[in-house]
């Protein structure tokens, strides 16, 4: 180790004079220095920027999924594709509240189950919404409060979502979307407690919900208590679909299979019939998105690291040219008593210093750009970037790696400098 230290001339790394010599050499040609470091600066800048954007995208996706419990699934009835028990293929399947009761009592995996009804979607007519002289057509949902546990509805201050009492007494209350509020109310007008008509029946507005990015309700739907919806639209026990959340320790994909098996039994559907029930589970969607994000991160790292290496090689290249340019200076230094170790050490420290300063500059510029982007985007939900930041350890790791790379690449010009015989250097005109 001692030999190694002497070999690299490490003992003078910490001397102020060494750095003054290096500063003198670097200062000598500012343009050269700037060109030299620009490659690494650009590389680190790109690395920080890409990493930040990937993180921002990641954060944004995650915040959207956070509205939803990830172990959630949806199931609805479609048409059979196989004849079974005397029924021809093509039989329409209608889910009912009875199915919900059976699933709730027989399948242990289920944490929450929320049957839902809708009109105004998938070919059903929308509800007519009237306030004063204005009217409009919007989708109307019949919901249990349970749905709030699966997909949290954000309600503006002062309002609330549907509760158990509303269900129990079939109250004529509704929660409306922000867009409906904007269309029907003046700015700053209080909608809570106001009476509106849905399909000719008066409802009391109890809340206005904020738009969500996930789901299909948009910001222009009307939510009624499930039981109220049942009565008004004459649904009986029919439901449009159900939303099910599995217990935290259960695998949602497994739960989905169990539930569909049970539903096939209940509706006399052949077990091999894949068409009778439609379903979708968030677990898979999240896994796919995670896969996409992981891929993004991987690409970011590959591009970033490749750019960094290219930058460091550029530094090595310029230093090599510099050594050639400085042949005479190196010869003079050696004639005056610089040892090979000192010459080598100086060139290598120049390389390390340049890569480090370049890396730091790139990091600062990249961070500033991310900060600027973050401020510009703010909470604009149309752009899927949230809080684009870089991981501290990734940055420290990147800086350390370029210093190591700078050291390695500096070895080449340093060796070149040492191989110059002072006599040849001095003879060169």
């Amino acid at each position, binding site marked *: 180790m001692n030999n190694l230290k002497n070999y690299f001339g490490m003992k003078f790394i910490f001397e102020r004079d060494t750095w003054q010599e290096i500063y003198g050499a670097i200062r000598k040609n500012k343009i050269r220095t700037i060109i030299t470091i620009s490659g690494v600066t650009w590389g680190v800048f790109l690395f920080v920027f890409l990493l930040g954007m990937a993180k921002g995208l990641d954060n944004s996706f995650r915040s959207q999924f956070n509205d939803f419990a990830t172990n959630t699934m949806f199931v609805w009835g479609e048409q059979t594709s196989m004849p079974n028990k005397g029924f021809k293929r093509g039989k329409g399947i209608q889910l009912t509240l009875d199915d919900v009761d059976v699933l709730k009592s027989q399948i242990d995996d289920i944490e929450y189950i929320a049957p839902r009804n809708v009109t105004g979607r998938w070919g059903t007519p929308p509800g007519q919404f009237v306030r004063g002289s204005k009217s409009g057509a919007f989708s109307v949902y019949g919901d249990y409060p349970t749905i709030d546990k699966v997909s949290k509805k954000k309600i503006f201050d002062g309002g609330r979502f549907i509760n158990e009492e509303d269900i129990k007494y079939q109250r004529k209350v509704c929660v409306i979307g922000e867009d409906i509020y904007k269309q029907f109310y003046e700015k700053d007008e209080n909608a809570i407690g106001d009476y509106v008509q849905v399909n000719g029946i008066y409802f009391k507005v109890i809340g206005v919900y904020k738009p969500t990015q996930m789901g299909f309700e948009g910001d222009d739907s009307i939510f009624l208590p499930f039981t109220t919806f049942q009565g008004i639209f004459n649904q009986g026990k029919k439901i449009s679909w159900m939303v099910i959340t599995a217990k935290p320790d259960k695998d949602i994909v497994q739960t989905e299979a169990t539930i569909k098996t049970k539903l096939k039994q209940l509706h006399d559907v052949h077990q091999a019939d894949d068409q009778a029930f439609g379903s979708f589970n968030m677990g898979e969607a999240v896994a796919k998105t995670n896969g996409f994000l992981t891929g993004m991160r991987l690409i970011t790292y590959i591009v970033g690291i490749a750019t960094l290496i290219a930058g460091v090689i550029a530094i090595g290249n310029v230093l090599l040219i510099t050594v050639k340019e400085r042949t005479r200076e190196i010869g003079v230094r050696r004639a*005056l008593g610089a040892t090979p170790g*000192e010459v080598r050490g100086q060139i290598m420290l120049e390389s390390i210093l340049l890569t480090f300063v370049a890396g730091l500059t790139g990091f600062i510029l990249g961070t500033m750009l991310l900060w600027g982007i973050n401020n510009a985007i703010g909470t604009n939900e149309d752009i899927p970037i949230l809080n684009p930041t870089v991981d501290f350890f990734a940055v420290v790791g990147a800086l350390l790696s370029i210093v190591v790379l700078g050291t390695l690449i500096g070895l080449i010009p340093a060796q070149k400098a040492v191989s110059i015989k002072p006599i040849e250097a001095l003879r060169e005109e």
Partner: protein
Amino acid sequence: MIEIKDLHKSYQMGSNSLHVLKGIDFSVKEGELVAIMGSSGSGKSTLLNILGMLDEPDAGSYVLDNVPIKALNETKAARYRNQFLGFVFQSFNLINYKTALENVALPLYYQRKKRKERTERAMSYLEKVGLAEWATHLPSELSGGQKQRVAIARALAANPKVLLADEPTGALDSTTSYEVMDLIQGINDEGKTILVVTHEPDIADMCKRIVHLKDGVIVEDRKVEQVRASQYV
């Protein structure tokens, strides 16, 4: 101070071997001022390079201040150069991005002297060569004669045993050449051993001894009556 016995040196020029030094015997006592003369190709620069430990002889012995100079690795050669020798070159070889003072202080930097001491000593040598007020100037702001005086101050800064000057006046006009020689004579008067390689007879006459090289051997070695440069300045 310098003892050289049967020194040989050849260079490979492609398939031909060029025998440059063909057995040089030569000694220099402390306080001498020796001119090494010869036409181009006579081997005078090669001899100086070997004396300066910038090149190695093929055969023969070289003793400098009772230290045998042989089989030196680069590190040791660098240390010896720093300790024993001061170099003055024809083309000055000042580092162009360092001020006069910084150039003079450079050998002291490689001696690991403290910054304060380096600056003080460098300043005193700059005063000695009459360039104290030019201390903060870059070489590009100095005249040829001034540059060579800075180079001489730099060669002296480490207080070497021997000063080796390779055509110190080769790039200067005659008036400036005499000024530089006046300075060299003054340094020699104080007791410093100095070797000057030159092909100009008037410069050689300003030394105390002339060694004439021809085709790799010493053909003449005589003491001369020193012409003082000060009378021309």
